[in-house]
């Protein structure tokens, strides 16, 4: 960088003015979008192409700014101080002869990168301004005011897979097995029904007969109905036995239950 000599010249007659400018900037510190923004503003005071700015002079200006801010007891955000420290480091790099070992990036490289960053930020600012200045939709350019919506006609196609079908069938066929019994009035004989039937028939029952003989015709075959008829008829016969109208007997456990009329002698 060509910084050194140039900067020394400038400082001699421009420093007062610059200090004043720095103070003005400090008042405005809230208005900056960070240290890079501030550096960009400072670089403009050099009034040259960004590619030709003296990074050393810029670093001086920035450090001067931070110094003034301290004197004026203005709180600066941490990133401003980080930048100040970095610029102080850069300044020393630029002023000292390069490290012969050459491991670290040289002051020139660092300065060049900072110059690139400033130029890039400036370029993006200008690009953003150009973008915003374009004729914009809804401001200078307009879309169709009375847009006609496309009418969408929806139709529905139903589908089912073989699996759906089989599951549905299985569901239907097994539903009966699990249906809550209260739902099954059809297949359920109540004790009242059995009692009515038995009362009507028992007058004829002079001989012992299996209670199943008293089931209605259509309650004999289907196991479920037969079970229900058995239970209801058995309960009814207990009731009639209690009333003293019939007798009950069973040969042994699980043997058929038989009833007959009890003659009131």
């Amino acid at each position, binding site marked *: 960088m060509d910084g050194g000599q140039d900067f020394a010249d400038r400082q001699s007659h421009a420093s007062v003015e610059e200090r004043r400018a720095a103070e003005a900037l400090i008042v405005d510190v809230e208005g900056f979008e960070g240290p890079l923004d501030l550096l960009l503003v400072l670089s403009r005071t050099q009034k040259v192409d960004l590619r030709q700015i003296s990074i050393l002079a810029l670093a001086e200006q920035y450090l001067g700014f931070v110094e003034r801010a301290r004197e004026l007891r203005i709180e600066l955000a941490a990133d401003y101080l980080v930048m100040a420290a970095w610029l102080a480091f850069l300044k020393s790099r630029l002023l000292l002869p390069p490290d012969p070992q050459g491991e670290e990036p040289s002051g020139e490289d660092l300065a060049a990168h900072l110059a690139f960053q400033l130029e890039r930020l400036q370029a993006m600012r200008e690009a953003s301004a150009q973008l915003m200045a374009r004729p914009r939709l809804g401001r200078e350019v307009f879309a169709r005011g*009375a847009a006609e919506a496309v009418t*969408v006609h929806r*139709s529905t196609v139903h589908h*089912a897979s073989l699996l*759906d079908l*089989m599951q549905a069938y299985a569901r239907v066929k*097994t539903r009966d097995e699990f*249906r809550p019994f209260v739902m099954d009035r059809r297949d359920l004989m109540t004790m009242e029904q059995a009692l009515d039937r038995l009362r009507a028939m028992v007058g004829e029952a002079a001989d012992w007969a299996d209670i199943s003989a008293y089931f209605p015709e259509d309650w004999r075959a289907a196991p479920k109905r037969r079970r229900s008829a058995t239970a209801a008829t058995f309960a009814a016969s207990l009731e009639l036995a209690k009333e003293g109208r019939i007798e009950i007997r069973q040969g042994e456990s699980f043997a058929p239950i038989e009833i007959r009329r009890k003659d009131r002698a």
Partner: protein
Amino acid sequence: MTEIPETAQFDAPSREEAERMLEAMLFASAEPLASAEMARRLPEGTDVAGALEALRARYEGRGVELRRIGDAWAFRTAADLGHLLERHAVETRKLSRAATETLAIIAYHQPVTRAEIEEVRGVTVSRGTIDQLIDMGWVRLGRRKMTPGRPVTFVVTEGFLDHFGLQSARDLPGLRELRAAGLLDNRPPPGAGGEDEGAEDEAQDSLFGT
């Protein structure tokens, strides 16, 4: 509030320019624009009526046309192209549970009467459900049954076999196979559509020992 014509300070535009201006205004407006309103927004001395007439002629026979609606004007899509503003969307939806069950019963029991379907399902089958299956081309009317009342029967169609990849309705797996394949549902909770899987099935099977 008074409107200050924005462009009144300019000279009256050429016919060509007036047409451009009207074109833009009419295009951007959400509603038909009264010619008086357009005149107010154009430089003084603009021949609005003439330019509108020229514009109408320019668009005649195009895909959009400039129409006069009372005192106002608007661009409108040419009437013969209205169909381009329509789109047909077909949505695929799963067949309802009632319809699937009814279809399954028809497939397994065909030819089957409506009363028989209801007998198997344990609930009444709505007219609409069978109609839907007929509309879909999966079910058709079979021969009448030779029982009192000669009720109509329902059978599945070629289209049904085709859709489900079956040679014939006899290819449908039996209950035993369904159970072996773990396809038997458990009891559906009343009201809820119970599509639950295997684990419970097993438990219930052993419980009821069928």
